[in-house]
């Protein structure tokens, strides 16, 4: 027998209470794990955004198009390094539910603007630039759909129609790209804007947005102002912002996620904290006589303090790790279906370590008061209490 055995026996003496306490903690960390992962995935675009990259969209709304001629005018602004543009294709593969993040782009400038995010072997790069019908797919997307270099693949659009009828375009997979950072999104595909222009039945010379890099992030504001002022009072006024701000604004279309997450997690934690703290205090109070006996037998007060605190920490860890494990399973399950919307949906080690720190904090906070009561317990008073 050891102190750990005593702790174990104390913990399990009322199995239903132990189960309910652990279950409450389980729920708290399930919420924490799942919701924090979601927030992290939503924020990934902001975190990974380059600080010298600006996005130009239609001032009315980013879903409204811009004339393609704007790209050249933007490139002429002093301090602009590279300019590229893209059009949202609304792509899917074979069935409408297999949605793909697919964009019609100007290939050469795309690879300049996103040189860190789109890394291609040289021969694949050359092949893609040389084949107007070619596409490049991210590693994750290619793995998900089973695409290999050289494959001929049909990709359909839920927005545009082919001038020869139907909604499907034929492409050749010319390259499979990765990112220079593992967090870079590789769940998308890009193809030639010119091929798209030649084959679509409507849409004209319009693009979705322009992305540019500046020679110096310090000039971002001036360049953005110059671009927007240049298109003021035109048929399509523009709104230029940094890529990070654009991503944030995009996310905020569905509400202030950060505030919602903070509210949910805080309320769950606060409720659990009160619940577990109350249960621990009750459990230790029930054992007043036994703690007095242990002290009488010669168990030192700090040793009993440690035992009570360890018990509380163990309960927090058992419930918390189980909850975090369940959150991981949910995230892994959701990953496949949500990959196109949230490519960075990963319960990573950072979130897990943060959750572990909260588990320890929960255990310490809820166990501290009962442990201190046990530490300070006077034997004579405890026996007199009955």
């Amino acid at each position, binding site marked *: 027998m050891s102190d750990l055995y*005593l702790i174990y026996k104390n913990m399990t003496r009322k199995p239903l209470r132990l189960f309910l306490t652990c279950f409450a903690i389980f729920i708290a960390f399930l919420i924490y794990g799942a919701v924090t992962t979601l927030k992290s995935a939503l924020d990934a675009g902001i975190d990974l955004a380059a600080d010298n990259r600006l996005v130009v969209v239609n001032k009315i709304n980013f879903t409204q198009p811009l004339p393609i001629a704007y790209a050249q005018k933007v490139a002429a602004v002093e301090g602009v390094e590279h300019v590229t543009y893209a059009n949202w294709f609304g792509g899917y593969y074979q069935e409408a539910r297999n949605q793909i993040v697919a964009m019609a782009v100007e290939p050469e400038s795309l690879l300049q603007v996103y040189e860190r995010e789109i890394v291609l072997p040289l021969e694949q790069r050359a092949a893609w630039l040389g084949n107007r019908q070619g596409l490049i797919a991210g590693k994750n997307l290619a793995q998900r759909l089973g695409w290999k270099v050289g494959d001929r693949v049909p990709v359909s659009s839920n927005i545009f129609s082919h001038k020869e009828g139907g909604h499907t375009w034929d492409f050749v997979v010319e390259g499979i790209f990765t990112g220079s950072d593992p967090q870079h999104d590789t769940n998308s595909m890009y193809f030639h804007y010119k091929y798209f222009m030649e084959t679509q039945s409507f849409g004209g010379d319009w693009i979705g947005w322009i992305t540019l890099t500046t020679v110096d992030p310090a000039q971002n504001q001036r360049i953005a102002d110059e671009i927007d002022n240049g298109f003021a009072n035109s048929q399509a006024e523009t709104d230029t912002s940094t890529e990070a701000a654009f991503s944030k604004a995009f996310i905020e279309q569905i509400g202030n996620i950060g505030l919602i997450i903070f509210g949910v997690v805080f309320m769950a934690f606060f409720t659990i904290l009160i619940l577990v703290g109350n249960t621990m205090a009750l459990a230790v109070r029930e054992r007043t006589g036994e703690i007095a006996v242990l002290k009488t*037998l010669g168990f030192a007060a700090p040793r009993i303090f440690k035992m009570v605190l360890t018990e509380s920490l163990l309960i927090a860890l058992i419930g918390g790790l189980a909850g975090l494990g369940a959150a991981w399973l949910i995230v892994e399950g959701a990953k496949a279906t949500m990959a196109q919307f949230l490519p960075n949906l990963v319960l990573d080690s950072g979130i897990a370590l943060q959750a572990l720190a909260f588990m320890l904090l929960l255990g310490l906070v809820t166990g501290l008061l009962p442990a201190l009561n046990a530490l300070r317990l006077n034997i*004579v008073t405890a026996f007199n209490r009955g």
Partner: protein
Amino acid sequence: MSQDLLFQLNGVSKSFVKGKEEISIFSDLNLTIERGDFVAIMGPSGSGKTTLLNMLGGVDQPSGGEVSFDGARVDNLSESALTRWRAHNIGFIFQFYNLMPMLNAARNVELPLLLTKLSKAQRRKNVETALALVGLSDRAKHMPSEMSGGQQQRVAIARAIVSDPKLLLCDEPTGDLDRTTADEILEMLQLLNRDHGKTIVMVTHDPAAAKYANRTLHLDKGKFVQRELVA
């Protein structure tokens, strides 16, 4: 000082403050207990019997005077030193047994040995010996709730003697038991005193129980009112 002297109380007083009033439990109390003695302490409720027992066991500290054990002062020890002293020298037997309900008999008996540096095997051997001594070898795996009051008190006695303390302090050890079972327990204490040389101090209300002791001290209003040799 006599080699046989185990405990000595010189001019010991104990009082506590309740509101603005200071209540004295006893004052200028003197007592000597020799090795191998079996002392019964009797007295009416509120006479200070349990307080005296707590003081002998280092659970409570005197307000004044000196308490010596084995030739060394213990009344001025710090709480942690007193805890260690208790673990090495004193075995406690309570009226309501005070066993840990979630541990079986053997585990309950093993508790004081967690405070020693004995190996697991040695601890197991000591537990078996203690349980055999109280006649409960076959009940080692039983939980307290599966045992009668007498059996639980025997487990408590095994717990008290397992670390071979010099002194056993018994607070109404038969107060919760019927006459026959009480006699069995008292015979066991007598055996531990007579055959194993354990020094025992027992607080009791029961004159029949006191007869098992070598001598009985009567405490009334904080003073020993008479001393008589019983056995």
